[in-house]
């Protein structure tokens, strides 16, 4: 099928299948999946600028479906999502400006690649340690005959002490989030959102790989709520990104619409699947995602081929 906006010839079934896979990942983990969509679109000959812009448009649609499903399951904190959207947009603008600075210095590819590898590996190692510790503690409690909250939507973390220490910084104004069950400084929420946006603008995509863990470990939001709220927040920030890319001529909406037909059903499947897993298990299953991202960047650095 020929797509006249980006002048690309792509099999629509390929787009639907890729959309479906990213939809499942997005619905389950609350990530945009750009680390798969970008290379997948590049692999069929799409220009990099179109791959980034079109992927963002498709993320908007997929996040609407997954966030609606998560909302029906009670997994979305609207208040937190709206506050975070402001910080994310500001962060993504700063991230995009940083890219321009490194472009002018002539070392943008090396800096972006190095930052991504360190970040992706760091998140993976931290999440492996934390989820492993949490699950081991739950097993020990089970063996000792004590009840464990480690099933269904119940959540626990081996780093609760770290989250509690962060929450002791009571810098006004303090915001109460009844849905998430936390009272926290507005500045902390903005900081987490800003960092997520910064990496989104700097490395591309929705940066769910950093925002979802940050919401759990820094803001103390339960994992299921972090996934749903992240998706809701992505609708706003990715819509903004789609608009800015579209006016630069980087969005082929026809490709995004075709991809989204697969993503719509995948996102629902992913969102429903979260019901069957406890928070630490979702976090442990999340670990391969940043590792795939790191592998793609290392491959690009070593071979010079952009996936």
């Amino acid at each position, binding site marked *: 099928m020929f797509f*006249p*906006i980006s002048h690309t010839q792509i099999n*629509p079934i390929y787009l*639907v299948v890729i959309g479906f896979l990213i939809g499942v990942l997005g619905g389950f983990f609350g990530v945009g999946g750009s680390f798969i969509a970008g290379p997948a679109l590049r692999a069929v000959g799409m220009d990099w600028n179109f791959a980034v812009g079109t992927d963002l*448009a*498709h993320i*908007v*649609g*997929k996040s*609407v*479906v997954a966030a*609606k*499903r998560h909302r029906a399951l009670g997994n979305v904190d609207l208040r937190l999502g709206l506050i975070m959207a402001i910080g994310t947009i500001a962060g993504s603008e700063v991230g995009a400006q940083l890219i321009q600075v490194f472009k002018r210095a002539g070392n943008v590819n090396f800096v972006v690649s190095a930052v991504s590898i360190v970040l992706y590996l760091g998140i993976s190692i931290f999440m492996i340690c934390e989820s492993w510790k949490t699950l081991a503690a739950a097993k020990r409690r089970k063996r000792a005959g004590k009840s464990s*909250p480690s*099933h*269904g*939507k*119940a*959540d*626990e973390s081996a780093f609760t002490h770290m989250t509690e220490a962060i929450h002791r910084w009571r810098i006004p104004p303090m915001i109460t989030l009844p849905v998430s*069950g936390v009272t926290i400084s507005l500045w902390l929420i903005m900081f987490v959102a800003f960092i997520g946006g910064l990496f989104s603008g700097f490395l591309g995509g929705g940066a769910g790989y950093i925002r979802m863990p940050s919401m759990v470990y820094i803001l103390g939001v*339960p994992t*299921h*709520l972090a996934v749903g709220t992240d998706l809701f927040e992505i609708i706003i920030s990715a*819509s903004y990104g*789609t*608009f800015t890319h*579209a*006016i630069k*001529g980087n*969005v082929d*909406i*026809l490709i*995004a*619409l*075709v991809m*989204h*037909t697969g993503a*719509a*059903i995948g996102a*629902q*499947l992913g969102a*429903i699947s979260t*019901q*069957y897993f406890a928070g630490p298990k979702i976090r442990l299953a999340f670990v391969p995602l940043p590792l795939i991202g790191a592998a793609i960047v290392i491959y690009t650095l070593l071979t010079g081929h952009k996936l």
Partner: protein
Amino acid sequence: MRGNMARPGKKQVRQTLQAFVAELIVYSLFVIIYFFAVLHFLGQWLVQLEIQHIRTYAVVAILLIIGQAVILEAVTTGLMRFLRRGRSE
């Protein structure tokens, strides 16, 4: 942190999967019709819009993807409900 939730049984998981497969078949038919009908008619108009009015194109692009998301979500939810009702009767 939130309270406990009962873990669904194997039977429930199997029923959900069965509903999903049935939904996938009906959904695929909808998508094929969609490709040949909607995209065929929208294609040329969107290409012209992108060339002549890029800002309008940007707004239309966001509205289209959100609109499609809302419609597809309603279709899949409706299908799931219909299939569940069919099974219980």
